[in-house]
């Protein structure tokens, strides 16, 4: 059954969430529950090759034997995996030849999200692969990218058009056995994005995907695979909003990045999923596995601004396999009300002269709990490895919590590892100073917080940085106590 505007009206008692709305597009939906039959259903719906079905079934069997992790500093009611529908796709799956062909209601959804496509195309040169309920419905700039040999498409399309690449790299960085949620994703993922940059090509525009959870009660199991071939460069943007829901929704994505020799990948995320209401009811569970692999002289840079979700469990990581490879992690994580975030990174140094930088800025407000969890691992052959970590926490109230769990494992004596950490409370003196200059309290908080996060926001592409700044301000409205 489709979710209608009437259902929505009932659900929308809490109108605080700006992006809380649904689009009334008919959808194809799998019955609730998870078993081999459902997996075969998903695979058949997507007209997948046999090897991929086998991949899913193997992952399902592994997942069935696994237990949910509970080491993170978060508390929540575990999702009932048999009460979730694992597949929902908008009924019109046909690809649009031109923008005019796109369903007006879909256009309206995008307009509400603030991403007018024409405008994006015209003004920013961003090619948007818009994923709604797991099926990619509109892709732009494909022709231009195609001239350079760049492949940027939905994951399903990649499975059909470029099976050799998918087969070679899928699961090579995040194996199905990696963790509970990665295994679940490997079994039931419905779509996602795929990107391949050929040798020596510098992608001329930011590649961007907007994810959006639109169907009631469907978990989202996105899968992203980015491959930067030797000497290539790509900057990839991922931004998210979701309509609000009373019941918790599960999101367990897998993102794999592969940077071959001398390649560079910059992956930026702004995450703004429904965080639940003021009393901690509802909100998205965001259990994501993101990892990149660097070959010789390669570089991967993760930048994230996390303001949404009720519970976040996310550690974008780098495996610095090749000599002289570089990993970077820049993060701002904001929690308000009853949100809980346990986020950080892993930097695995395998090659010689590998370098990693971690800049983490946590902001806790309301009664929320915000944890940084990071691992810096220097293996025995990683001569002259270097790491610099800086973990700062900003507290907005007396009732919130900030926690830092830095792990360091070093097996090579030539390594240099630095760790700095600070915790501060937003200063009443700072706010008074701003007020005395005529600046309102809301703007003052926004200024102070954006200043605090500057090192991270500076890493984001321009338009994204502006959006992120607004998000920070919205997330922290009226939160000083």
């Amino acid at each position, binding site marked *: 059954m489709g979710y209608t505007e009437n259902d929505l009206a009932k659900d929308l008692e809490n109108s605080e969430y700006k992006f809380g709305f649904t689009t009334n597009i008919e959808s194809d939906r799998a019955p609730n529950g998870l078993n081999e039959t459902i997996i075969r259903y998903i695979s058949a719906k997507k007209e997948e090759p046999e090897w991929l079905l086998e991949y899913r079934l193997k992952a399902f069997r592994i997942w069935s034997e696994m237990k949910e992790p509970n080491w993170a500093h978060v508390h929540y009611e575990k999702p009932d995996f048999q009460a979730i529908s694992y597949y929902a796709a908008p009924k019109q799956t046909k690809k649009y030849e031109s923008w005019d062909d796109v369903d007006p209601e879909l256009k309206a959804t995008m307009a509400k999200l603030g991403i007018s496509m024409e405008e994006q195309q015209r003004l920013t040169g961003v090619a948007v692969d818009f994923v709604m309920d797991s099926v990619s419905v509109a892709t732009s700039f494909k022709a231009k990218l195609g001239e350079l040999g760049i492949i940027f498409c939905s994951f399903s399309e990649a499975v059909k058009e470029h099976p050799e690449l998918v087969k070679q790299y899928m699961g090579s960085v995040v194996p199905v056995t990696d963790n509970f949620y990665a295994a679940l994703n490997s079994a039931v993922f419905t779509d996602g994005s795929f990107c391949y940059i050929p040798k020596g090509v510098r992608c001329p525009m930011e590649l961007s995907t907007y994810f959006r959870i639109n169907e009631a009660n469907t978990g989202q199991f996105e899968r992203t695979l980015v491959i930067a071939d030797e000497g290539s460069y790509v900057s990839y943007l991922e931004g998210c909003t979701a309509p609000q829901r009373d019941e918790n929704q599960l999101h367990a994505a897998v993102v794999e990045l592969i940077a071959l020799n001398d390649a560079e990948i910059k992956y930026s995320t702004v995450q703004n999923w429904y965080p639940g209401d003021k009393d901690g009811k509802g909100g998205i569970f965001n259990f994501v596995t993101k990892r990149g692999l660097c070959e010789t002289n390669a570089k991967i840079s993760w930048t994230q601004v996390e303001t949404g979700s009720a519970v976040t469990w996310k550690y974008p990581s780098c495996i610095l396999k090749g000599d002289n490879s570089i990993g970077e992690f820049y993060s701002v994580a904001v929690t308000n009300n009853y949100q809980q975030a346990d986020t950080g990174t892993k930097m695995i140094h395998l090659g010689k002269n590998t370098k990693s930088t971690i800049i983490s800025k946590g902001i806790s407000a309301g009664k929320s709990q915000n944890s940084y969890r990071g691992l810096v691992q220097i293996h025995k052959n990683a001569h002259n490895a270097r790491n610099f970590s800086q973990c700062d926490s900003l507290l907005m109230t007396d009732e919130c919590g900030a926690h830092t769990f830095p792990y360091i494992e070093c097996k090579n004596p030539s390594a240099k590892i630095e760790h700095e950490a600070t915790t501060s409370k937003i*200063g009443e*003196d*700072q706010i*008074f*100073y*701003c*007020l*005395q*200059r*005529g*600046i*309102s*309290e809301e*703007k003052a908080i926004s*200024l*102070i917080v*954006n*200043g*605090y*996060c*500057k*090192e991270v926001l500076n890493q984001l592409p321009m338009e994204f940085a502006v959006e992120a700044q607004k998000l920070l301000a919205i997330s922290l409205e009226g939160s000083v106590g």
Partner: protein
Amino acid sequence: MLKIENLHASIDGKEILKGLNLDVKAGEVHAIMGPNGAGKSTLASVLAGREEYEITEGTVAFEGKDLLEMATEDRAREGLFLAFQYPVEIPGVSNVNFLRTALNEIREYNGQEQISAKDFMALVREKSAIVELDAKLASRSVNEGFSGGEKKRNEIFQMAMLDPKLAILDETDSGLDIDALRIVANGVITLKSDKNATIVITHYQRLLDYIVPDFVHVLYDGKIVKSGPKELALELEEKGYDWIKAEFQH
């Protein structure tokens, strides 16, 4: 411009201001002097609108409006400026961004248009020259890593940018060497007009060698106990505050 009548203010239940009266007219410079703990900084904080202080009695009219009813930011927007004794650092927020935000909020409140980037930068150049503030400091984070003298100069620079009706300088001379003192004082003098007024709160006479006050008031035990012409400041410098204390000890 400013009329304070019988002002009583306390913090944590302790009364600091005990019936203070002051009348400041446009074009005037008033110096408020007094020993430590007399309530000088409390007066500045209360006028600016710090929430920790409780006003138990009295009235303050600013341009005919009830100042005590106004929110802190509205007082600023109405033209009240406080040069802080200890200017606050705001890491990561550039001075220019901070000032542009402030200026535009004030303009919006007063029904004016936002200032254009070009006009704003021209204003920054013009006003930073008044306090001989390095242009680089204008683009650095607010007060972060500034020396004591730079912070005070930055306060006067902000004052110049926001062009207030009433400026309150809270111990602006403290911690300044003689050159910085001269620069800060010159800045204040340059900004003086018959439309604005200045209250200089200070412990020492030396700032008043540069900024010559029309009136000097002695604040003691939460009240203004003596007012006079600028010569009073010299007398205080010479004799200290003990004779005042002796006179008013109960």
